[in-house]
C-alpha cells in the first residue's frame, strides 16, 4: 500500500514536470524609446546672414560601437551675436522622435550648458527659462569674441540642482555631452 502511494506521488510529479508547455515564439524587438541619437545646434546671426548648423549624430546610440559623426560649424564671425536653438532627436525611430519637446515639457528637470574650451572666445546667455525662472537653455544667444579656435561643448543634464552656477555644481546626470571644434574668424 505504501509503495502504491509512493508511486502515485512519483507519477503525479512526473506529469507536472512534463506538462510544462514549450512555446517557441520568436520575441518581439524592443525599440529604445529614450535614446538620444542626434543633437543639432542652429545659430542664426541676429543681424541677418546665413545660418550656421552643427550636428552631432550617434545613430547606434551610446551603447553601439560606432563613433558619433560630427558635422562641425563653419566659422563664426568676430563680434557677431547669434540666436541659437538646440534640437534633440531619436533617429532610431522613423520618423525621428523630437525629444526637445519632452525636455521643454519637463523644464524643471533639465538644463543645457555651453562650455567653450581651448582658445575659443565666445560668451553665451540663456534665452529660455523653466517655470521657476531658472535657465533651461534649448534657446540661447552666443556672441563671438576675438578670433581663435577651440572647442564648444553642449551638455544636457537631467535632474540638475537648480539654480546652479554652472556644470561644476549642477549635479544630475549627463544626457548629452557633445563637443564641436569651433573657429572664430
Amino acid at each position, binding site marked *: 500500500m*505504501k*509503495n502504491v502511494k*509512493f508511486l502515485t*506521488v*512519483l507519477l503525479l*510529479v*512526473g506529469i*507536472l*514536470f512534463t506538462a*510544462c508547455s*514549450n512555446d*517557441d515564439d*520568436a*520575441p*518581439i*524587438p*524592443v525599440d*529604445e*524609446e*529614450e535614446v*538620444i*541619437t*542626434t*543633437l543639432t545646434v542652429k545659430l542664426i546671426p541676429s543681424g541677418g546672414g546665413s545660418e550656421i548648423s552643427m550636428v*552631432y549624430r*550617434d*545613430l*547606434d*546610440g*551610446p*551603447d*553601439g*560601437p*560606432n*563613433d*558619433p559623426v560630427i558635422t562641425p560649424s563653419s566659422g563664426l564671425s568676430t563680434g557677431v551675436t547669434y540666436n541659437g536653438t538646440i534640437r534633440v532627436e531619436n533617429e*532610431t525611430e522613423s520618423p525621428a522622435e523630437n525629444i526637445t519637446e*519632452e525636455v521643454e515639457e*519637463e523644464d524643471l*528637470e533639465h538644463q543645457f550648458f555651453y562650455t567653450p*574650451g*581651448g582658445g575659443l572666445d565666445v560668451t553665451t546667455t540663456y534665452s529660455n527659462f523653466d517655470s521657476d525662472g531658472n535657465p533651461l537653455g534649448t534657446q540661447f544667444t552666443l556672441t563671438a569674441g576675438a578670433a581663435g579656435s*577651440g*572647442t564648444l*561643448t553642449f*551638455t544636457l*543634464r*537631467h*535632474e540638475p540642482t537648480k539654480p546652479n552656477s*554652472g*556644470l561644476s555644481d549642477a*549635479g*544630475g*546626470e*549627463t*544626457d*548629452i*555631452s*557633445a*563637443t564641436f571644434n569651433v573657429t572664430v574668424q
Partner: protein
Amino acid sequence: MRYYAIMVLLLCSTLTHSQNCDYSLSGSVLDLHDGQILVGATLIIAGTDQAVQTDIDGKFSFSNLCNDTYSVQVSHPFCRTEGFTVKIFGKTRRSFKLEHHVEELNQITIEGKAFSNKSKTILENTLNSDVLERYSNGSIGDALNNLSGVSSLNTGNTVMKPLINGLHSSRVVIINNGVRMEDQEWGAEHAPNIDINAIGNLTLIKGASALKYGGDAVGGVIIAEVAKVPVKDSLYGKSLMTMSNNGRGASLTAQLTKSYQNGWYAKIQGTLKRYGDFKAPNYILSNTGFFERNLSLGIGLNRFNYGFEAYYSLFKNDIGILRASHLGGAQDQVLAIESNVPLIINDFTYDIDEPKQNVTHHLAKIKGFKRFDNLGELEIQYDFQRNNRLEFDIRRGDDKNKASLDLQLDTHTLLLDLDVKAINKISLKTGLMASYQKNIANPETGVRRLIPDYDMYTIGTYGIANFKFNERWLLEVGGRFDYTYMNVFKFYRSSFWESRNYDVIFSDIVVEELNNQVLTNPQLNFYNGSGTLGSTYSFGKDYQLFVNYSIASRTPNPSDLFSEGLHHSASRIEIGDLRFNSEIGHKLMFSLNKRSEVFSYTINPYINVISDFIVIEPTDVRQTIRGNFQVWEYRQTNAKLIGIDVDASYSISENFIYNGQLSLVKGYDRTRNEPLINMPPVQIKNEIVFQKYSFNNLRMSLESEYNFKQNEYPDNNFEVFIPEIGTTKLVDVSTPPDAYHLLNFNSSIEFKTTKNKTFVVGLEIKNLLNTSYRNYLNRFRYYADDLGRNFLINLKFNY
C-alpha cells in the same frame, strides 16, 4: 505508536513459558538514518526483569533467555521509544534501529545530528540558529561574513552578495531547503533572495565537492536548511524583533510549528522589514531604504520509512539604490569620485525612489522519501521557482515610472536521489536531476533586453562513494556529469553584430534582419564533468585532517554570453561573448582541525586553479553623444587563487573566550600576469566573549575587525575629456580605499518566564566608534562612505 508498543509488550508478556533457558540475545542499537551507533540506549525485555544499556560501542547483550518470542522495548534519550518482537533461537544476534530525532524545544540542540554532513572530506562551517538570529534584521550575506574566508561584494548597504575565497555570483551555488536557488544570481548586484529568518541552519562548503547540488560551484556552496520538526505532539514558536537607529527601522519575524506524535507537522513563518535611508558617519545615504516581506509555509509527514514534505516560500523586496550612484557617463564619474561626499544628499525619508530594485521570488517544492530495507533511502523532489526582477532607473517622459529591466525566470527541477545502505564500510549516494528554465524579458520596458529570452534544459547525474576504512580514516570519491542545452532568441544591434564580425562567424543563426537590429537564434550545448576526491583522517585525541581535491565546471551565465550595452548602475558598457566555453576550476584544499575544551583551531590553506576563467575588464573608452563611457569586455583567461583561512578559539577562563580569525586570498590572471580585480583584502578579526550561564545566560562580546588595504589590483584607470578644462583627466577607478578598523559590541540576556517560555533581550552596537570608511568590495565606494554607528535592540520570545 506508543500504544501499539505497549500492546505488543502486554500481549507478548503472557506468552513466556518455562523451558530450557540459557540462551542469549546480543547486538547493537543504531541510528536508523545513518547507521551510527547509539550509546546509552536502554533495552528492557518484557516479562523478565532484565534491562541493559548499550555500551560505548553501542553493543548490548542479554543472557538466560529461552527459545521463545520476546518483546524488547528500546529507548534512548534522543529517540522515540520503540517496541520490537524478537524470536530467540540459541545465541541470537539482532540489531535495533531507532529514529534519532531532534529535540528542538527549550534550546536543546544535538550538534551534528540535526543536519547531516554535506561533504565528508571538506571541513564545513556551520551557523546555527543562535547566530542566525543575531542577523535577523540583515541578510544571509551578513551572517556568512562571520565565517573566515567569506566576505561580500556589496552594492551600497542593501545588496550583499556572498564572496567565498574570492569568488561570487554564479560561482557560488546556494541551496535553499534542498532547492538550488535560481534567482538570477549572475548579477553582481543581485542579492540572494532568501529570508534569513526562514532558515534554521546555514552551512558553507568552500569547494565543489557537494556534488549532489551541482558540479559548477567553482567558488563554493551555501546550504540553507529549515529547522527540523520533532516527531512529538507539540505547538511551539518564536518571535523576534529588531529595532535599529541607523535606517530608523525594524525587522519583525515570527514562526509557529505544530507537530504530532504520528509524524504530521505544519509550520508557518513570516518576516517584515522596513528601513528608511541609512547614514554614514557624516551624512545621510539618500535612497538606501528597503522594504522586505517574506512568508513560508510547510506541511509534511515524517515516518520511520517514508514521509513527504510540501513547502512554499515567498520573498519580496523593494531595495533603494544610493541616489548618488546613478551617473550619466564618465564625466559624471569624475565629479563623483573627486567629491568627498555623495553629490546628492537629501533629508531622511522612508520613500524608495528610482533607482531601485523590486524582486519577487516564489519557491514551491514537494518531496517524498521512502526507505527500502535492502536498498536504502529513495528521495524524489519536484520544485518550481519563479523569480521576477524589476529594476527602475531614472527616466524621462512617459517612461518615468516604467521599469528599465523586467525579467521573469521560471525554473522547474526534478530530483531523484538514492542513498544506498552502507555495505561493508562503503556507502554510496547517487541521483539524477532534470531541469527546465525559461527566461522572459518583458519588451515593454522600452529598453533593449539585457538578458535575452531563452529556454534552458539541463540533465545531470552524480555518484559519491565513501569508504570508511576504520573509525579514523575515510575516503570519498565522487563524480558528476551535466548536459545543458540553451535555445536563445537574441536581438543584436546591427552595428555591434558587424563590429564583432559575428555576421561572418554566426551567419547561420540569423533569423531575421530588422531596421537596426538582427534577430538571432543561438543554440548552445555544454557538457560539464565535475568530480571530487578527498580523505579525512582523525589522529591524536582531538585532531582531524581533511584533504580534498575537486573539479568544477561552470556553464557561462547569460550575462557572460549575451551582455551588449550600457550598464547604468556601473556607468559602463559591458560586452559578453557568444563563443565562451565552460570554465573549469581545480581546487585543492587542506584543513587541520583541533577541537578541545580549551583551545580549538582550524587552519585551511587552499589553491584554486581555474582555466577559461571569465573576467570582465576595461578595454576601451567609447565616445558617445552622452560623453565618454568605459567599455568593459568579458574574456576568458587562466586564473589562480591562493589563500588561507584560520580560525582559533581559546577559553581564557570559565567565563571568557577569545575568538580569532584570519582570511587571506590572492588572485592572479596567469595569462596577463596581473592581479584579479575585486579580491578581498586581508582581514583579521579578534573577539572577546564574556558568558555567564548562571546569570541569565548573559553574553557580552566585543569584536575588532581590521581590513587591510588591498595592495594588489589591476590598473583600470582611463582618461576622459572634460569640456570645462578643455583637456582630459585621469579617472581613478582602480586604487583601493585605505585600511580600516571597526569595533562591534554585542550583548544578550535571557529570562525564563515559564518552563517553556524564554525572553531574550539584546543590545548591539555596530561600528562603535562611528568610523568613516570605504570598503574595496563595495561597488559604491567611489560615491559614499559605508555605514556609520548603528544601535540595535533585539527582542526574542520563545514559546
